[in-house]
């Protein structure tokens, strides 16, 4: 079995032991996501927030299931801001998102790093190398460097648990946000978790506002010294990291020394059981002296990492000669076979696996007829992120672009502005309900503010849930994360409020011909139109009815 780390209590503070009652050295098989939720719960995290995104979604659902206070925010930026407020109040917060979600939340992140935060702020970035369910495979370790946020990378569920506790501890010691960088296989693989035992963490403080204007108001005069303090804190964390037990060395033959982190560590141990391994737990700021000493004890030092050559570049830049992988292994996930290839310097073409059955727009989906209509009218479809992206596949092939959350509207407007009128008139933006609330509203404002000469048509496919990620609630469902009743935002109301001339609400299942006629009419006039096609997701409809019945009883 693997070594277990202990989380050392900070000196001179109250300490919450995690060995209470039923948790006494319990052994469970849990996913990395569940492990993060368990740690957040055990550490007394006051609020968890985020936006659903594979592979991060289950963290907040599990935190809610444990009795933690968990919320879905309209998008990741808002989520990070809410979490930041919690931390400014002195309480502990965790904010979860998939890798591309951090792009949305990057604005608050970069300046949150300048602030002095009395309560822990842990930012979970769940990256998706190999793109199991994403539009790109960006490597968010780069964000830690760019924003100046210290980063921990667990390599299994045990570490996901322990590093979450550690992140809280380090965040509060240096009063800075911490990033917990997960990847798909860490989030979703189930591995053994031993909870309790020697683990402990300082007790959370009670929330209490203490004014500290220069440390929290980032006008240039205050931000200049705040930036200096951030760099000083990072320098201290780097020194701490040189001897911290989040990093460890697995002894082995001095012929080969492998520097690795995260899931790659597991593949390395299997592919090269004889090698000496430096496993890094905190990968920003890096412990360069530890790495230098390690490299000097081996004949050949090699960095094995998934995604970008982040570690290899940083280590080389520090003047430590190491080998890295070739460019072909930057793409996709690593696994044991690929690590063996890297070790052997094998750059021959990799075998292509037979394709499985691809996912498809559900056979009974009420929104299928919309795509038939778009196709019949030869529309140019500016698409968005959600299950309706699956309409790009046969038989519809009715999506012409898909970039990021909310892009359908802006990209559609750009196409309308630039294309000759006979083509511009066929451009339609197609967006789902959860995506609309996430980042479609500002696109709608742009449409009303800078309308193209041919007008524009935005089609909001409202299936009453965030379907693709597993049926999460959003501001338009009128229910919170735990499905209890709350305010319900109206898509058509928002469209009217920003000044869209024509707003229609239709049920796409009633009559495909009528829908197609309406769409054609709207395309033919140089006006602004929003059509809300409303029909609950087939897979979620039963649960939605049940939630509504229960909420009606509560009132």
């Amino acid at each position, binding site marked *: 079995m693997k070594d277990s780390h202990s989380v050392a209590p900070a000196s001179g503070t109250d300490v919450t032991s995690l060995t209470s009652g039923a948790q006494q050295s319990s052994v469970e098989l849990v996913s990395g996501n569940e492990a993060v939720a368990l740690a957040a719960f055990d550490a007394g995290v006051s609020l968890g927030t985020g936006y659903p995104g594979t592979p991060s979604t289950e963290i907040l659902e599990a935190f809610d299931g444990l009795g933690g206070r968990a919320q879905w925010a309209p998008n990741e930026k808002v989520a990070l801001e809410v979490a930041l407020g919690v931390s400014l109040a002195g309480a502990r917060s965790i904010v979860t998102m998939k890798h591309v979600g951090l792009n949305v939340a990057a604005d608050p992140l970069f300046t949150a790093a300048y602030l002095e935060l009395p309560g822990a702020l842990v930012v979970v970035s769940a990256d998706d190398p190999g793109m199991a*369910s994403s539009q790109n495979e960006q490597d968010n370790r780069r964000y830690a460097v760019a924003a100046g946020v210290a980063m921990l990378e667990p390599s299994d569920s045990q570490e996901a648990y322990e590093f979450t506790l550690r992140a809280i501890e380090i965040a509060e010691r240096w009063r800075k946000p911490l990033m917990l960088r997960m990847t798909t*296989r860490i989030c979703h693989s*189930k591995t*053994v978790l031993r909870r309790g035992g020697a683990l402990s963490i300082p007790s959370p403080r009670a929330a209490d506002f203490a004014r500290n204007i220069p440390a929290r108001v980032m006008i240039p005069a205050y931000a200049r010294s705040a930036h200096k303090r951030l760099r000083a804190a990072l320098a201290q964390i780097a020194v701490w990291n040189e001897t911290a037990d989040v990093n460890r060395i697995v002894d082995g033959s001095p012929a080969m020394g492998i520097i690795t982190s995260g899931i790659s560590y*597991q593949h390395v141990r299997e592919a090269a059981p004889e090698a000496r391994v430096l496993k890094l737990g905190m990968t920003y700021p890096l412990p360069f002296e530890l790495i230098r000493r390690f490299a000097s004890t081996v004949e050949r030092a090699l960095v094995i990492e998934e995604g970008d050559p982040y570690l290899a570049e940083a280590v080389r830049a520090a003047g430590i000669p190491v080998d890295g992988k070739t460019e072909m292994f930057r793409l996709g996930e690593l696994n044991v076979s690929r690590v063996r290839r890297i070790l052997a310097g094998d750059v021959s073409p990799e075998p292509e696996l037979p394709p*499985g059955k691809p996912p498809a727009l559900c056979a009974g989906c009420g929104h299928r007829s919309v795509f038939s209509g778009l196709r019949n009218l030869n529309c140019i479809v500016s698409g968005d992120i959600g299950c309706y992206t699956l309409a790009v596949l046969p038989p519809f092939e009715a999506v012409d672009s898909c970039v990021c959350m909310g892009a359908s509207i802006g990209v559609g407007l750009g196409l309308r502005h630039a294309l000759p009128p006979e083509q511009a008139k066929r451009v339609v933006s197609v967006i789902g309900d959860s995506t609309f609330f996430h980042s479609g509203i500002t696109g709608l404002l742009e449409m009303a503010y800078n309308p193209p000469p041919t007008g524009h048509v935005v089609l909001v496919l409202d299936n009453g849930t965030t379907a693709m990620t597993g049926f999460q609630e959003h501001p338009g469902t009128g229910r919170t994360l735990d499905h209890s009743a709350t305010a319900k935002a109206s898509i058509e109301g928002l469209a009217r409020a920003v000044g869209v001339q024509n707003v229609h609400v239709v049920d796409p299942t009633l009559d495909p011909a009528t829908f197609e006629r309406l769409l054609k009419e709207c395309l033919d006039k140089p006006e602004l139109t929003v059509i809300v096609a409303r029909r609950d997701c087939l897979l979620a409809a039963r649960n939605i009815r049940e939630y509504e019945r229960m909420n009606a009883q509560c009132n």
Partner: protein
Amino acid sequence: MRSVTNIVIAGLGGQGVLTASDIVADVALHAGLDVKKSELHGMSQRGGSVASDVRFGREVFSPMVPAGEADFLVAVEPDQVSVNAAVLSPSGIIVEPSQFRADKLRSKKSLNVALLGALSRHLEFSEEAWIAAIKRRLPEKLVEVNLEAFALGRGH
């Protein structure tokens, strides 16, 4: 015997692949072994291919079964055998519905558990251990029909 046993369970979304791999992992965990289980979520409810890897032994590192190293490929959907063939070791065993009277199942939905019955004949865990895991992992109202399915697959 190799120190780690590798099992891949394959099928389509909605066929209970993940439930089956949860049960296998549970049996191994309760036998005191190190266990890892991995699969890709996200698209499975849209009817696409789903494969789940379960690995157990004294110490398991990677959660993913390396190509050519699966000891067992359990195919809930027979046409997923070819899709996953590359994962099977040369001495690996395919477990599929044609190996028992799947037509005698009371509910087609318990085919996944019937296949575990067939798999269980190749593994060293006791029948009681499997029954206990099925009871732990499934809702009470589904236990009886699935225990029957398990017995059918195991060959009672």
